[in-house]
């Protein structure tokens, strides 16, 4: 870059001198190092803004909490796309900040980005949110953590079922993938456990963050008579706000959105990432091997429900609390036979119980009876 040989004009020489001078001057101001000899440096990477009232905020809340743990330094970077950008961001945290434990939080960071970096930096721990790690296929310095949030979605459904007067619920979803379908189905099963006449009208927007489409979908569902909305998109903000403005009820997702809808917010399915974050941080500090496969539901503290809003009736609270207690005991199964999909095909035979840990659930490709929509 600074090769200016063979161009001996005075101007060029002056320019070179100028650049050299500037570089020298910059060197005098040594930036604060993130690295400290005895501290564990942790890097957290988000695909969107940290204050999105959704997926990223749920992760950022955990990051903010582990910052307070002794001997820990946290460096964060937001709005990092799932391209080579995230590879370079991971490498920068490792090379420039001295990070040895990374939480690259977006689902799409895993393959190929985390796998590439894990190969190159074999001594660094990569804890990925989403549950893709497979024994024998993926490196040992990579781990997955994820939560059974469909438990909270089921509870959302119970509360929604009690609250709805029109018996029409609305669900706005990003993509028809197994994780999302499982939430839609759990929500609907919860609601129909209260009243089997209830239906869930589904709208799929096509992508994780499409605020305009999400608002339009919410408006159109409300126009069709839906009086309780929920969603599975990166930021539930516009759905929650639209519901509040139109005077209908709403169940939250990812994080707590109660402040956005003081009148209509019923409850919500929230992540509690502090649990897996703390486990990974403690293991790293103790030098124990990385736990590659980390999962849990309400019982294990990986997910939680938002506090009930004002509009939630006594009967709804009682019913939902009862189911929640059984989930905490570990004897409640959401997906059990006989279960039919919305084309009347049997998807789980009578007598079959698919517990949370059952991997069949992770290939879900159907919508249960009562959902109006198509995969």
């Amino acid at each position, binding site marked *: 870059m600074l090769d200016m040989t063979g161009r001996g004009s005075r101007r060029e020489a002056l320019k070179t001198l100028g650049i050299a001078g500037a570089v020298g001057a910059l060197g005098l101001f040594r930036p604060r190092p993130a690295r400290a000899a005895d501290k564990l440096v942790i890097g957290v990477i988000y695909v969107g803004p940290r204050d999105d009232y959704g997926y990223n905020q749920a992760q950022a809340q955990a990051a903010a909490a582990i910052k307070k743990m002794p001997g820990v330094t946290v460096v964060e970077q937001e709005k990092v796309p*799932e391209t080579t950008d995230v590879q370079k961001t991971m490498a920068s945290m490792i090379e420039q900040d001295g990070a040895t434990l990374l939480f690259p939080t977006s689902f799409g960071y895993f393959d190929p980005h985390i796998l590439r970096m894990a190969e190159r930096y074999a001594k660094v721990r990569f804890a990925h949110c989403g549950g893709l790690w497979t024994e024998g296929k993926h490196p040992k310095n990579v781990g997955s953590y994820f939560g059974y949030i469909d438990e909270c979605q089921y509870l959302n459904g119970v509360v929604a079922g009690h609250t709805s007067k029109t018996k029409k619920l609305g669900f706005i979803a990003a993509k028809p993938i197994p994780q999302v379908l499982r939430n839609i189905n759990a929500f609907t099963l919860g609601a129909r456990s209260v009243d089997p006449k209830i239906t869930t009208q589904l709208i799929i927007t096509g992508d994780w963050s499409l605020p305009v489409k999400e608002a339009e979908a919410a408006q159109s569902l409300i126009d069709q008579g839906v009086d309780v909305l929920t969603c599975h998109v990166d930021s539930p903000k516009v759905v929650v706000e639209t519901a509040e403005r139109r005077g209908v009820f709403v169940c939250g997702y990812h994080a707590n959105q109660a402040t956005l809808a003081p009148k209509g917010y019923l409850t919500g399915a929230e992540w509690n990432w502090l649990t897996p974050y703390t486990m990974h941080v403690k293991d790293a500090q103790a030098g124990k091997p990385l736990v590659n496969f980390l999962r849990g539901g309400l019982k294990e503290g990986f997910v939680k429900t938002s506090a009930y809003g004002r509009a939630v009736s006594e009967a709804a609270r009682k019913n939902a609390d009862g189911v929640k207690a059984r989930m905490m005991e570990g004897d409640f199964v959401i997906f059990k036979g006989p279960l039919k999909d919305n084309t009347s095909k049997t998807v789980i035979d009578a007598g079959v119980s698919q517990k949370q840990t059952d991997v069949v659930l992770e290939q879900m490709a159907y919508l249960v009876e009562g959902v109006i929509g198509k995969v």
Partner: protein
Amino acid sequence: MTRQERGAAAEAVVLPVAALAAAMVLFGLFVAALNQNPLEVYALIYRGAFASAFSWQNTLVRAAPLILTALCVALPAQVGLMMIGGEGALVLGGLAAAVIGHFLGGAAPLAVELAMAAGAMAVGAAWIGLAGALRHYRGVNETISSLLLTYIAIAVFNHLVEGLLRDPASLNKPSTMPIGEANMLGHLPGLDVHWGLGFGVIFCVAMYVLVARTTVGFALRIVGGSGRAARLAGLPVGGLVLAACGLGGAAAGLAGMVEVAAVHGTANASLIAGYGYGGILIAFIARQQPLAIVPVAVLVGGISASGGMLQRRLDLPDATVLVLQGVAFMVILASEALYGRLKIFRPAA
């Protein structure tokens, strides 16, 4: 070089550098208002983007796709068209590359890679060529049509990736079948930067030669100056318009192929990362000059690389980088008004 030429050359270097310096001062005031020490911020920007081999490679990797997508704006601009649909050509080019890569999977890697590149470039060329043809033959505004075509391209892309072409094993992240590790493009020798950078630089140099040093390029610029004059001079205006659009689209399609073949190994929604739109900015700052695209893209790559440093060390939000980028580009564009107006660059003959 005559004195006038030297004056013009000096102007072309001094003005942007001075504009950049002015932008840095403005940005310094901005961060000072946020209670940060501007000198520390400058030092971090420099460290993040250019201080070491690591940061240089970080910068170059970010610049690579933008070089190609900027050409998708700069080449149609030679014939006076303002195409902003590079994103569409990129995603469809990437999709074509992924499909070709999968179906030719077992052949010799070099042949597979060439076929992927050729297919992606052909699809990209056809896509932008379509907007050019709509403009030339039907009078449809190319800026609007290329933008709308991008939405169509993304919809078609998602439809195919989540439907017909979906790899059944890609459960929660719908993707096409992988092209296979053997067919992946490697890194540039000695660098941790993939071949996309090499392709971009070669493409820019070739386009510079074409535009500035050949009769075809001269003809393109005549069409850009005045289509009617070009027609009166007997130039095949339609063919030249389609050629310029096709070349631009081919560059964006190639960017899509690089994303698939050097980064993702498959086509999925991660391809829709906004590189097509990033290229528009770069082409304008480079004043639609193919050679100038390379340093401008490196500058943008550097800003983006150092943005991470600012976030991590000073806890500044990502938006800070957008402020820096915005300030830098506004000042550079404003400085264009000064070209030809400063006496020091206009020595009396």
